[in-house]
């Protein structure tokens, strides 16, 4: 498999990272190197192996359906880039 510049641009767009032509070209060089390392994985037959998603074989804990958090809106919004009347402001989405 070899990566193309279009792959880089597509993935950067999916990841919501603005990428210039120069940056995309540099990323292509680095990522191609990294993927040549990653390709070593394909040499192993794993058809009978179960994927391991986690280090500990444990189940998710359930908790009681109770309110544990208090209202800290002011504190949390004090570090927000832009707020108004307790709301987070972003550019207009609907005209």
């Amino acid at each position, binding site marked *: 498999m070899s990566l193309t510049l279009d*792959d*880089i641009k597509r*993935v*950067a767009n*999916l*990841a*919501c*990272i*603005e*990428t210039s032509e120069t940056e995309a070209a540099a*990323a292509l060089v*680095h*990522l191609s*190197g*990294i*993927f*040549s*390392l*990653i*390709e*070593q*994985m*394909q040499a*192993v037959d*794993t058809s009978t*192996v*179960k*994927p*391991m*998603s*986690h*280090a*500990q074989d*444990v189940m*998710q*804990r359930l*908790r009681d359906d109770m309110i544990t958090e208090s209202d*800290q809106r002011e*504190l*949390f919004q*004090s*570090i*927000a*880039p*832009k707020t108004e009347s307790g709301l*987070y402001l*972003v*550019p*207009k*989405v609907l005209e």
Partner: protein
Amino acid sequence: MLNSSLHQLSALIAAKKISSVELTNEFLTRVKAQNPVYNAFITVNEEMSLAQAQAADAMIASGQGHPLTGIPIAQKDIFCTKGWLTTCGSKMLSNFISPYDAGVIERFNTVGAVNIGKTNMDEFAMGSSNETSFYGPVRNPWDITTVPGGSSGGSACAVAARMAPAATGTDTGGSIRQPAALCGISGIKPTYGLVSRYGMIAFASSLDQAGPMAKSAEDLALMMNVMVGFDTRDSTSLQRAPEDYSRDLAKPLQGLRIGLPKEYFVEGLSSDVSSAVELAIAEYRKLGAETVEVSLPNTKLSIPVYYVLAPAEASSNLSRYDGVRYGHRAPEYVDLNDMYQKSRAQGFGAEVKRRILIGTYVLSHGYYDAYYIQAQKLRRLIAQDFSEAFKRCDIIMGPTTPTTSFPLGEKSGDPVKMYLSDTYTIATNLAGLPGMSIPAGFGNNNRPVGLHIIGNYFAEAQMLNAAHQYQQVTDWHIRIPDTLTDL
């Protein structure tokens, strides 16, 4: 004082020979004088540290002291710390004053430890040299032209240059052990799930684990006693009976079976590191341990597997940084999508972007099975290698890193070269096993070598015992760089 162990400082404080305020001032003065050389701290806040020290002195006066009450501890800037700037080494969080404390920070606060400052680190813990930090590289106290390792490079440097008696770190692929090795200190990454990840800024959640960094195994045990514990706010936190990690320190090593993986002593390991490690193992034989060759046949695959799984998890974890609720927002943009795209492009550094791109790619439609699922299957094989090996030995030893510290800039332009410096440490994260590094002599140019100790799940007390016994018959862990002439 600056060169004392946690145990010594603790005794001085308990005997009221020194107050926490005096001790904290002493370390703050040291940080102020030395940090311009090393860049180990991102944030120092005298006022807040001294307020904690005063509270600690009150705790001691009222007879409620704990072994770490009043002792300054450096905190990696990955732990959210209420009222403190918490940057994770990134421009993205360069304006983030945390509104809450991480579980780890809470535990230190409960026992009255003093936060002496937030330490520098690779951006979002992605790096092995501390060169990806938005706040600039940290320098290795043993040779300031070389890197301290990463990502917990600031913490390792702070302890090595005696700016803090101990520090916290986090380890996703070696980020406690590799800098500990390169800076000549001791560090342990506990079994996955023992230390709360609540408020620890996430990189790769199935691998991230916090642990202590200090001058000796004995001090690490004290830190572990504070850091380990169940936390309902971390869904992967393990509920277990509390342990005293110091309990087995004094045990003799007679009969301890040390496994030496043959894959760890082959091509790629530099000869100076190899000879130091072999001498350390010879020392263990003198202490009564037996050595047995073991095999971890899938060792070579751990780096490729890690560089699929960790970026995959990172790309998901870092999607939260969008410039809406906190963190960097681009000053100019035309619409919402442009705001996301520009904020993220400006807020993240090159290595973080690379890993987000890799992660997004391997999780994208059509590639998921070939990369992500294949990596998860190989992760199981790597974990199984260890369970097989532990049938023949109690503990595994080898080098922590393939080389000693390397010059600043040597590997920063070549990610693959940089990734290979975590060859020996990554597999333990994939398996979720505990791993530690302790000083084991010096390589060329008087640069420290780390001995890597891997234990079975929950074998931390045994690993600390093995490390402590070695530190009783060697003095590598108390050596300090020649440049620290004032100590």
